[in-house]
C-alpha cells in the first residue's frame, strides 16, 4: 500500500528530473573521454613493451653470389625486419626488406643484388617496431 502511494507520488512529482538528465549526460561524456584515452594509452604501452622485448642480432655477413646476412632473434617475440643498410665512408645504401625471424630462430638472408663494399663497412637492420641491430665488418 505504502509502496503504491510512493510510486504514484513519484510519477506525479517531476521536480529535479532535468538535473538527473544533465548529470547522466555529463557522465556519459566523461566516460567516453576517459575510456577512449585509457584504451589508447593501453594500446601504446603495449607497443612500447613489445619494442622493449625485441632483441635481434646480426651474427654474420658473408660475400657469396651477392651477400648473405645471418640474423638471430634472441627476444621473446617474432621480429619483422623492414630495412637493411650498407654503410661505408662514402655511401649509405638503404634496401627495403621483409624478413620475419621467429623467437630463438636464426635465419640466413641471401641478396644477390647487394654487393658488400671493399674496406670497412657497417650493416644495419631495422625492425618494424623501431629497433636496430648493427654489424661491423671489413
Amino acid at each position, binding site marked *: 500500500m505504502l509502496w503504491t502511494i510512493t510510486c504514484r507520488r513519484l510519477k506525479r512529482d517531476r521536480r529535479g528530473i532535468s538535473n538527473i538528465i544533465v548529470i547522466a549526460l555529463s557522465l556519459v561524456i566523461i566516460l567516453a*573521454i576517459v575510456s577512449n584515452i585509457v584504451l*589508447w594509452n593501453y594500446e601504446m604501452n603495449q607497443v612500447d613493451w613489445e619494442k622493449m622485448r625485441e632483441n635481434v642480432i646480426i651474427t654474420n655477413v658473408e660475400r657469396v653470389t651477392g651477400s648473405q646476412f645471418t640474423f638471430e632473434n634472441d627476444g621473446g617475440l617474432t621480429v619483422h625486419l623492414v630495412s637493411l643498410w650498407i654503410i661505408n665512408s662514402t655511401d649509405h645504401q638503404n634496401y627495403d626488406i621483409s624478413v620475419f625471424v621467429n623467437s630463438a630462430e636464426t635465419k640466413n638472408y641471401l641478396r644477390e643484388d647487394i654487393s658488400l663494399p671493399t674496406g670497412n663497412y657497417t650493416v644495419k637492420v631495422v625492425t618494424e617496431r623501431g629497433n636496430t641491430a648493427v654489424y661491423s665488418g671489413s
Partner: protein
Amino acid sequence: MRKLSRNRRGITPVLSSLLMTVIAVAGMSIAVTATYVITDELHDNMGERLIVEDVWFTSAGQVSLYLRNVGKVSIKVAAVYLNRTDQSFTSLELEQDKHGWLTVTYGWSADSAYEIKVVTRRGTNVVDYYMSPS
C-alpha cells in the same frame, strides 16, 4: 478554424519548450564536438613514435637524417636542432609506416660529436648523439 486562429492561449509554453529543446540540442552538439576534438588531439599525441634510422654527414656541408614513422598516426617534422641550435631543413611529412630523408644544411666539422634533436608538430622529440666521420 476561425476559433483556432483567434484563440492564442497555450502558444507561449509551446514556444518556450521548443526554444529549450533547440538550446539543449545545440549545447549537447557543442559538448560532443569538444569531446571529439579533445580526445582526438590526445589520441594523436600519444600515438606518435619516430626513429632516426641513419645519420649521414655528407661532404656538401649537409647532414641527412633518415626517419621512420613507427607510430600509429602521421607525423610532420617541425624543427631540427643540431647542438641545441635550430636549423633549416627540407620539409618532411610521413604517413604511418613510411620513411624518408630529411636534409639539414649545416657546416659540420670532422671527428666531432653532435647532438641531433628532431621535433614533430605535436611535440614528440627524438634526441641522440652522432659522431661525424674523420
